[in-house]
């Protein structure tokens, strides 16, 4: 019963938000609290874990929640209902775009949309960077950004840039912070 309930709640809460994973995670927090699956501390731990898990944060949150509620079955069910409906919509939309983008008016609309998407990516970058733009972290942030800019200019691959950044981060350390990074998922 709880797996079915979990599946319904994750399906409902993740697939009705447009603003990214933070909004979905807030809806999941409220639902999980109502179902007595998670208290505030549990939500904080899950949020931190989701931000440290590679990939899409809200999917990691769903897997963690599913695992806490119903073990591995819950994790798999939560992951499927959180990702498959959106994937089907995206694939259908992409297929439609391929068929209609030969029409000039469609191409103009797409060009405008692409410029808007650029703004959305910039917004994601801002959400990722914002927690580190304080006085205590400023020089560390500037150093990492400078290293990324130089390595990127030298055409170093992103994976190597991440490894170099991790090594520099471990070397120089960070100011202790209670807040986990705020990321757009």
């Amino acid at each position, binding site marked *: 019963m709880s797996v079915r309930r979990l599946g319904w709640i994750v399906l409902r809460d993740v697939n009705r938000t447009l603003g990214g994973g933070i909004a979905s995670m807030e809806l999941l927090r409220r639902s999980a609290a109502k179902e007595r699956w998670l208290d505030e501390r549990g939500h904080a731990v899950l949020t931190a874990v989701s931000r440290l898990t590679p990939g899409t944060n809200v999917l990691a949150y769903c897997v963690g929640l599913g695992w806490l509620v119903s073990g591995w079955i819950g994790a798999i069910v939560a992951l499927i209902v959180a990702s498959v409906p959106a994937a089907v919509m995206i694939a259908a939309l992409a297929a439609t775009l391929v068929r209609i983008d030969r029409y000039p008016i469609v191409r103009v609309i797409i060009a405008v949309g692409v410029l808007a998407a650029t703004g959305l990516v910039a917004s994601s970058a801002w959400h990722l960077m914002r927690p580190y733009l304080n006085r205590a972290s400023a020089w560390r942030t500037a150093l990492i950004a400078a290293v990324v800019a130089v390595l990127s200019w030298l055409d170093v691959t992103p994976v190597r840039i991440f490894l170099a950044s*991790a090594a520099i981060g471990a070397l120089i350390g960070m100011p202790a912070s209670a807040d986990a990074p705020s990321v757009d998922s």
Partner: protein
Amino acid sequence: MSTFALYVLLLKATATSFAGMGSLPQIRHDLVVTAHAITDEQLSQAVLVGRSTPGPVGAYVVAVGYFAGGVEGAIAGLLAVMTPAFAAVPLLVLMQRWLHVPRVRAAVDAVVMASAALLVVSVVRMASDGAQQFARLVGWM
């Protein structure tokens, strides 16, 4: 490119990023610059499609997969989005043991910062590509 190779490249991108859009620089490097499997324009369209539907932002990788390999590519994209999420379970178990270690936390923070900085680099390239495309269309009309 085979569907499995596409899955591996997309997984490499999703498994080395810490946010939905964080995989964009690696995807651009592997699929646009190196493999020429999609164009910059298609990558931008994939982002647009991904942000136009409800659900996880990172699911734009499904559209990338579709543009690179049709329906099989979309399935490869979906699997590449889903796979890293399973790391949440061992992380949940390990977190209380290791995250309080300052150097571990600092390394993770540095990777998140680098992810944001790389996104800014992608934004500049996308904006340039989008502006050129728009200018071409306006001139043509």
